[in-house]
Structure formats: structure tokens, C-alpha cells
């Protein structure tokens, strides 16, 4: 068993997980709940094993490094943090329907990593610029932030869906969307997830700045990746201030959660492929 097999299995298990959470949501099959959580947890452990094995394999190849160094490894880690965060939210807020909106992100990330033709799955050695102790701190903190924003976007989507049906006054407890948590609860979890993501994004930007300074003597050079991470930071800063000081909530925050995540995706993915700069690891 090698890491690529385990990570390949993960792609499919996250797909089943997505389907199962959708079944719970659509068919209101609450009894399935614990089994689906169990299944997702096992899939998560398989992926964790895959990541550890990949780490170990890189040492066997003679250039050991954490599996966080190219586009493939980053999407795999992105999926991993989304599931980890989702499972914590499920456990903390005791609701499973969120799974139908959060787990698909992890599946899509894994599917992209597995099937996209423009990214390499090979374990490659580290170029000199990446040989730093800041690598792990920077990548891990950024991706915790990204994962939180992904989940927040899923929640935002869920809010808008429920809100739409409520304004049409078609919702009652028997209907499809009746199984979703109340608008107030979704709004609260969305906000908390964004706050969590904002803290980690801040730490991610700061660790990146410290790393840049130790490698090039400049903590901030307005490289496109840096600038886009700052734009994303601004968007969430605006969102939090609008909520705290101007009382924004509900649909507006839900839209901002989705809009913010679009910026995250552009920072993470768009910059690598559409713009040039220091973080060009995605293009090769």
C-alpha cells in the first residue's frame, strides 16, 4: 500500500461521504447520521495515513519534506483540513446537515488533485527557496484559514437556500429545508467560522512575511500572491466590521462568506495559474 493508493481511495470515500450527507439532507434519513459520520471519520483517517505515508516516502526518496510543497499536495491538505474542521463543527454544534454543504468542497479538492492533467502528483525534491522551517508553519496556518472560509461559504450557501424558501413561505418542518438548522443558528455558525478563518489567515500572512524576510530580506514585496491574500484579508475584515458595528447579518453576511471564498480561491489557485510571482509552484 503506498500513499497514492490511499489518497486515491480518499477521493472516492469523500465522494461517497458527500452523497451520504446529501441523502441525510434530502431524504431526512436521520438514522443514517452516526454511520455517515463514522464513514467520514474513517475516510479522514485513511487520508491522514496517506499523508503520513507520503511524508515517509519522501524520506525514502532521499529528500524528505512535509507533503505541503506543490499544487497536488496542497489540494490534498486543503481537503484534509476541510474535513477536520467540518468534523469538529459537527461535533460541536450537533448538526449533520452542514455536511451536505461542506464535505463537497473536500471531495472537489481531491477530485481536482487526482484528475486534473495540469498538476503533477509526483513527490519532488524541494527547490532551495522552499527549504525552510517556515514552510510547515506558513502552509498549515494558511490552509486552516482557507478551510474555514470554505466551510463558511458552504454555510452561507445553506443560509441563502433556506432564506429563499422561507421568504416564499413554503417551509414547514416536513419540507426539505425544514431539516436545516434555524436561520439564526446558521448565521451564528457562519460568523464563528469566518472569525476562526480570519485569525488563521492573519497568522498565515504573518508567517509568510517572516519567511520572505528570512529568505530575501523583504517581508512584503506586493507580489501578486501576497497582494491577493491581503485583499482576501480586507474582504473578511470588512465583513467582520459590518457585522460588529453596523449589525449586518443574515443574507448579507452569507453573500459575503461566499464572495470572500471566491477571493480565497483566486488567492490560492487563480494567482498561481493566471498571474506570475513567487508562488509559481502551481504552474509546474
Amino acid at each position, binding site marked *: 500500500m503506498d500513499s497514492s493508493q490511499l489518497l486515491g481511495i480518499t477521493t472516492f470515500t469523500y465522494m461517497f461521504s458527500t452523497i451520504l450527507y446529501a441523502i441525510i439532507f434530502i431524504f431526512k434519513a436521520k438514522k443514517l447520521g452516526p454511520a455517515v459520520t463514522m464513514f467520514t471519520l474513517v475516510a479522514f483517517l485513511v487520508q491522514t495515513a496517506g499523508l503520513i505515508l507520503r511524508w515517509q516516502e519522501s524520506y525514502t526518496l532521499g529528500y524528505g519534506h512535509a507533503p505541503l510543497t506543490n499544487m497536488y499536495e496542497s489540494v490534498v491538505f486543503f481537503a484534509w483540513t476541510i474535513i477536520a474542521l467540518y468534523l469538529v463543527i459537527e461535533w460541536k454544534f450537533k448538526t449533520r446537515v452542514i455536511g451536505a454543504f461542506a464535505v463537497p468542497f473536500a471531495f472537489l479538492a481531491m477530485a481536482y488533485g487526482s484528475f486534473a492533467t495540469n498538476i503533477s502528483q509526483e513527490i519532488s525534491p524541494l527547490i532551495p527557496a522552499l527549504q525552510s522551517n517556515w514552510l510547515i508553519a506558513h502552509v498549515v496556518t494558511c490552509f486552516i484559514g482557507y478551510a474555514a472560509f470554505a466551510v463558511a461559504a458552504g454555510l452561507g450557501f445553506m443560509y441563502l437556500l433556506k432564506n429563499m424558501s422561507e421568504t416564499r413561505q413554503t417551509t414547514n418542518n416536513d419540507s426539505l429545508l425544514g431539516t436545516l438548522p434555524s436561520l439564526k443558528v446558521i448565521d451564528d455558525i457562519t460568523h464563528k467560522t469566518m*472569525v476562526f478563518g480570519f*485569525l488563521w489567515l492573519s497568522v498565515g500572512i504573518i508567517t509568510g512575511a517572516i519567511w520572505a524576510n528570512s529568505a530575501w530580506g523583504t517581508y512584503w514585496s506586493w507580489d*501578486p500572491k501576497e497582494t491577493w491574500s491581503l485583499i482576501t484579508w480586507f474582504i473578511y475584515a470588512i465583513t467582520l466590521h459590518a457585522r460588529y458595528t453596523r449589525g449586518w447579518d443574515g443574507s448579507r453576511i452569507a453573500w459575503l462568506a461566499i464572495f470572500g471564498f471566491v477571493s480565497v480561491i483566486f488567492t490560492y489557485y487563480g494567482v498561481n495559474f493566471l498571474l506570475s510571482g513567487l508562488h509559481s509552484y502551481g504552474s509546474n
Partner: protein
Amino acid sequence: MKKKNSLFSFFSSVKLALFTLFLLSITSIIGTVIPQKESISWYAQNYSETTARIFQVLSIPNMYNSWWFLGLLGLLAANLIICSIDRFPGVWKQIKADNLATDPKRIMKMRLTASWTSDKSEEILATELSNGLLSKGWKAAQRKHDNALMLFAQKGAMTRTGVYIVHASILVIFIGAIIGELYGFKGSVMLPETQATSSFFQFGTGKSIDLGFTLRCDRFEIEFYDSGMPKAYKSMLTIFENNKITLEKEIVVNDPLTYKGITFYQSSYQGYEDFLLTVTNQENGEVQTVTMPFQQQQDLSKHNARIGIVNAEAMGQSITRMKVWFKDDLGPASTFWINAGGQVTVERPGKKYTIAAKQMYATGLQIAKDPGVWVVYLGCGMMILGLFVAFFMSHKRIWILLSKEDDISTIQISGSSNKNKVGFEKIFAGLSANLETDTK
């Protein structure tokens, strides 16, 4: 209520903050789409003459240092300062408030309350309640009111400053950046092996800056993985002051050398068609290093000999092995191959030499002095601390009223928290249940 002038309220408004952040986000995109710091002719070629001129007028080619972008950052800073001046005194008053002076009627009306009765005396109850609170980390103070005794305890009053720590952190980062801009410099130097320099050219201005000491590159090396990918760029650097060696260090990317506040970073390299040869006489230990072009001879004065490269093999841009021709004062010349970066021992009549050969490189060093960087890091630390406090910590307050009627004491407990109300409800329920059992 103090009367505020309209300018003050404009600069202290959150609307302005939201507007500034919005403008900063939108305008920041420009510089990620239009390449920065190219020449005017480059923009004219890639866009059009007119567009290039418009870019010029709007400082688009260096937009993050343009008057209008710095102006937006300045507006944000002014907004942060004035907003904090406006709001902080109120928050400080809440932190330092005499909570024991709170009107008992208000305490009774709080959202979180619980009450029970006891037939113990007021003194005993006060002690038991204080101890009960203390066992959970609440340090209570008390004061006599008209017909009741009030106990008060709080946690995390200072956490109300969290938001202001975050706002201040942004200003601290700005100050650090300004210090770096005023008292620091950045530049680069391309230093060939064996050469030394005591000055370099500054970025932007192109001005020559004196280091105040001498820096020499003794050796530059590239290591490759088997796949041909670069594994490491290494420069052996030596620093001299008054012709005395004061520091020697091998630098690689991510591990620079710092001397007297100036840091040298490995950033690039350049390969030459010349070669670097080091000849050591094993008998007397005499060492001589020479740089020389391909297929030419050169005198080695220290060894009374001549040396030359007669042939070389290369893979791409880098030389893999060299054929060396060597002759001293006795006997015919020796010729032999040396692998790049390697060395061989040559036996000559009555003498023995070690000869090392490699392609000659220049190391590209990034040079920076930034006395503001620690201020920036301080700001970053403050930001993380402030965000954590602002998001995850709250100011929790507990009031207890003890009143007596017909030998029966009534204990009324109330609490409030400025954040995480759900979490505090649990804490409050647990605490009041504990205190009730303590005093029964």
C-alpha cells in the same frame, strides 16, 4: 455629551473604515494584473503609447508606492487613530468601572439570574460565597448597600482592549515600515568568486552605498539533485574590517549572513566562461588561487609554475569536468582531468601538488538593512494576540446580592458577559449551582 466637530466624526466613523478597506481591496488588484516596475517603453510596447502615458500619470507602474495608494493607507491610519481616540476612553471606563456601585435593581433585572434562600447569617454567607467564587478563580469584593450586601467578581476586564490592540498593531506595523523606509536600504551585488567589495548599488535610486566593511566571495557552488533540479546555492563569504577577517560564513537561500545590521541573502548567480584553479604545494603548504580564461596559460608566481585549461566538458550551462595542463620548473608538463569542484594530486619530480578546479561563478547577493523589521514583527505579534483576545476571550461579570428578611437570607446572583453569551450561560449555571450547594 461632548460636542464633536464634523471632521472628527468623519474620521472616526466605521463607514470611513469600511470605505477605505473597500477601496484598498479594489485598487490593490490593479498591481497584480498590470506588471509592476517595468520601464515606460515596456508599457508602451505591451499596451499602447496612450495607455503607458496614463499609467505614468497615475503611477500605475509603481502603484503600491504611489501617492494615492499611500494616501489610502494614510487615511486608514488616520481613521484607526481617531476612531480609537473616540472610543477607547469609553471602553477604559467600563474596564475601570466601580461595579459594586451598580444599582441593585439593575442587577435583579439582568438576563442571567438565579436565587435561593438560606438561614445562615450574613457574615457566614458572605464568607462562604467569597470562598466558593475564589475556588473557581473569581476574586470577589463586597460593599454594603442600604438593605443588602453586594458581592462582585469579574474575569477578563482587560480583554475589552482586544480590538484596540489589533488596531494599534496595524499602526505599529506601519511605523515599522516607515522606519525601514527612512533608515534602511535594499540593494544587490553580483560578486565574482575571489573578488571583494565594500559598496553596492541601491534598488530604485541606483545610488552606491558604502558598507563600512569589505565583503569577499571565496566560493560559490550549486548542488543538484539526480533529476537535475537545483538542490542548493551556496556562497562562502568572508567579511574584513581593517584587513582583518572578522566573520566567515557559508550562506544558502533561507540562511543569510548578518553583520552590523546589514544582511546578505543568497539570491542569484552567474556562470562565467572562466575557471577558478587552486594549487597547493604539499611540501611547503603554499596556496595560490587564480582565475583564468579557457585555453590560456598563466603563471603561478608562488610555485614558479604555469597552468592552463586545455579542454572542458559541460552539461547545459555548467561545466562537469576540465582538462588541466600544469608545468613547474622541472620535467615535462602534466595533463589530467578534474571533475568540477573536485581536486587531484599531481606528482612532479621532487614535488607534490594538490590542484582543485571549478567553473568560475559570481554570486548574486541581495543586501538589506531594515531596522524597522522588529517593529513590524512586534506589530504582527500584537495583531495575533489582539485578534485572539478580541475573538475568543470575554469580560465576564458576576454580582451577588445578599438580603435578609425575617431571619431568612435571600441570595440573588446575576451575571453578564460581553461576548460568547452561550458559553457564559453554562459557566453561570454551573457556578450558581455550586454556590447554592455551598450555602445551603
